[in-house]
């Protein structure tokens, strides 16, 4: 195991001193996940059942106008739906039929619950069952909630993937061990990982979600699941209920994180150590060289992260350990202590981790620290820039391909660019 990161069995380092806050959250709701989910599952359509606010949120977050007809839409509830003048289920059926009539290529339709649909207790899971029966076998209809009263930003992906789990085929108890990578990854990243696993001698690796609705992987007692994202609590729980075992691992950010993530999978499958070393040696060396070039840009710089995507802890770990950045406060909307145990064990001492948010207080703390770089959402970035702080929009960390060896330096560059820009501008 030469050169592999030593992963201590999670002695709770910073975890005890987590600052838990409750207040105004400057974070998207789970509906926003549709922006990347619809691109990943290429024959799925996402129909939000909600209000004009929901429609406006998604188009504002996505900049959807570039599509001739996007694969998501909102069934906007109106006064007559709420006043009970029309049956909400009849209305929903009418909207879905119209939609599917126009889009015959759609194979999977998600009815996505929102704050208003949750508050009026519109039962979308029953509606999905009913519609699924009606549309069978051409279209499968599923439902999940992306509402802001229940989900935070990336939890929308968790809810969506969790909705897929019951539909996954059963893998027999006698089936050989198989590896299931869980969480949306950019196609380019997914393909790289596929090649790496194949090089280790693991040709049969499945990914959830699949690129096409009909390609759902199977799951059973011999399924080992490797989480590619740190925000998949419900999905992982449901997969465990179907017999899968979670492979504990840090997340594949940076050369170190990627190596540890792949190695955890290799050990679980198991893969021969020399086959593992042979598979990762070249890309790992490539990543380390590329990161070494980026390190001077970031080393010694202090960073503050506002909560956004739950990627904050793994990203902070990467920036501290591989880039030499000084962590100040690392905020996360929700801290899954079990899935992040390996990450927390690798965090440097003295970091303030905060969970939840009271944005005004957090801004006070950020202004007091005046970090070299502040990672925050789009609502805060320009106001902080105008106060003289250098910022990085967190949403780009989620939308860009960042995982894996060949993206490690790109990830570092995302943090380095605002700092570099600051030094270049003379205005």
């Amino acid at each position, binding site marked *: 195991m030469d050169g592999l990161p030593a992963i201590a069995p999670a002695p709770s380092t910073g975890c005890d001193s987590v600052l838990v806050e409750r207040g105004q959250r400057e974070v*998207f709701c789970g509906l926003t996940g549709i922006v990347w989910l619809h691109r990943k599952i290429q024959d799925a359509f996402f129909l939000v059942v909600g*209000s004009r606010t929901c429609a406006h949120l998604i188009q504002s977050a996505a900049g959807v106008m570039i599509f001739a*007809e996007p694969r998501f839409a909102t069934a906007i509830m*109106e006064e007559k739906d709420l006043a009970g003048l029309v049956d909400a289920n009849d209305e929903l059926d009418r909207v879905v039929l119209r939609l599917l009539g126009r889009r015959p290529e759609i194979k999977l339709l998600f009815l996505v619950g929102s704050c208003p649909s949750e508050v009026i207790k519109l039962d979308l899971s029953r509606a999905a069952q009913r519609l699924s029966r009606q549309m069978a076998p051409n279209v499968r209809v599923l439902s999940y909630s992306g509402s802001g009263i229940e989900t935070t930003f990336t939890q929308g992906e968790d809810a969506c993937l969790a909705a897929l789990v019951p539909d996954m085929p059963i893998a027999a108890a006698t089936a050989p061990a198989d590896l299931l990578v869980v969480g949306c990854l950019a196609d380019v990243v997914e393909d790289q990982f596929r090649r790496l696993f194949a090089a280790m001698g693991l040709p049969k690796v499945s990914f959830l979600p699949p690129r096409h609705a009909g390609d759902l992987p199977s799951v059973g007692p011999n399924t080992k699941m490797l989480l590619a994202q740190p925000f998949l609590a419900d999905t992982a729980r449901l997969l465990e209920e179907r017999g899968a075992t979670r492979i504990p691992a840090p997340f594949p950010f940076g050369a170190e994180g990627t190596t540890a993530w792949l190695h955890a999978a290799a050990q679980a499958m198991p893969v021969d150590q020399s086959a593992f070393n042979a598979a990762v040696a070249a890309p790992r060396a490539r990543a380390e060289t590329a990161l070494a070039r980026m390190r001077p840009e970031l080393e010694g710089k202090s960073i503050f992260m506002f909560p956004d995507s739950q990627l904050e802890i793994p990203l902070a770990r990467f920036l501290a350990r591989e880039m030499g950045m000084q962590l100040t406060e690392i905020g996360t909307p929700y801290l899954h202590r079990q899935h992040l145990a390996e990450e927390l064990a690798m965090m440097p001492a003295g970091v303030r981790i905060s969970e939840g948010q009271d944005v005004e207080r957090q801004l006070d703390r950020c202004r007091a620290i005046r970090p070299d770089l502040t990672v925050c959402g789009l609502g805060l970035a320009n106001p902080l820039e105008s106060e003289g702080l250098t910022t990085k929009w967190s949403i780009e960390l989620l939308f860009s391909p960042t995982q894996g060896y060949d993206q490690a330096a790109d990830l570092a560059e995302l943090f380095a660019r605002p700092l570099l820009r600051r030094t270049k501008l003379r205005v």
Partner: protein
Amino acid sequence: MQLTLWTYEGPPHIGAMRVATAMDGLHYVLHAPQGDTYADLLFTMIERRQKRPPVTYTTFQARDLGGDTADLFKQSARDAYDRFKPQALLVGASCTAELIQDDPGGLARALNLPCPVVAVELPAYQKKENWGAAETFYRLVREFARRPETTPASISCNILGPTALGFRHRDDVREITSLLHRMGISINVTAPMGSSPTDLMRLGDAAFNVVLYPEIAGPAAQFLEKHLGQKATKTVPIGFGATCDFIREVAALAGIDPTPFLEDETAHSPWYARSVDSTYLTGKRVYVFGDATHVIAAARIARDEMGFTVVGMGTYSREQVREVRAAAQAYGLEALITDDYLDVEEAVAALSVELVLGTQMERHISKRLGVPCAMISAPMHVQDFPARYAPQMGFEGANVIFDSWVHPLMMGLEEHLLQMFREDSEFSEAPSHLGHAAAPIRAAEPVLDVQASADVAVLDAPASNEPVWTAEAEKELGKIPFFVRGKARRNTEKYARDAGIARISIETLYEAKAKVGR
């Protein structure tokens, strides 16, 4: 339920935010779940504002619903007052909070905060953004405007309507302020933009009101007319003619002679339109879509100041439908009233349009259809906030509009020159600003590369009753200037269908040209 792929207007509380964000000394406490804070980025990213909107979101969660969301609201309102010390607090609910019926107004008043509380009820399931802005501004004016102690000087006015996230509001205000100053009229208060609740208390000190954006200031101006006797302008000064009308209207209200102000040496657009190089603009078929104010103004400019033919117009502004319908009638048109962009796309595609004047959505529609396009209206895109001074109103606004409408067409002409010279040996394939996906280029391709053209799909579909182009006719079509080629193709095909001609030859092409004409 209404199936919506994209919406021209946000919910009404966004309108309230546009008013609050434009003002000083006002803080908006919005009862809303997590996620509704997305609205902040409209202001900080699209408009590039340097401050967060003055909005506190209560951020209630599912687990609060059984408990006490009302307490959460009260706590948020109290904290917001303590932190921001506003002159007045605006309170309301977003769509979800409307359903839980916590009565933000009553709750906030019960706190006995040392500042006035203005409650706005914005029915999120009936109304939209502009209505929300108008209602909010009306509520604020109603709360704060006072009858003046002395009769106002006849030579002063208020400017009403500009908000945050408005189409060129910042520059329009500057342009109209300077026009009014040239006329010797003093500006008492400009609101909402740049005013505070204290300023609104002085609204009555002006003799009359200048309403720049009726969508937003209409109800407030009506209230001020009824209760304080302030007359309001009806003309929106967008375009040269409308600016002259506006000057006459303002002069009448102020009791002065408009004549000296109608001649302005900076008004270049009328001469540019008469200049012979503009001849090619004659009769260009334009489609106009946007908010009511800008659509009505743009249609007038298009016909009277550019010499275009308005072939279609419409709006998403439900509150001003009557005005737009009436304006459309004057052009012999039926207005398209919709908030579904697919309806607009269909209309643009069907009408052989040569220029689209619209919103950011029409920009995308036009890109897809390969038609030049210029922006005239919200909803806003980051590109619609130029760094330079670019008003729509006043004489400078007319200049800006002339340039910004003509440039896409001029670029089209350059495209034409590229096409003309592409077979010259000196010609090297330069990247086109329209991109190779745009139709003008694509339409030229058939001669060279039949497979590359989507337009020649008919060649592959002889089974349908669509007429088929012979290779010679297709080649001849390629010699026709690209900007009329699409129309020539459609006219020829229609002619062939009507005449029962299955194969389009060169003869058919010229027969159609003679019979159908331009």
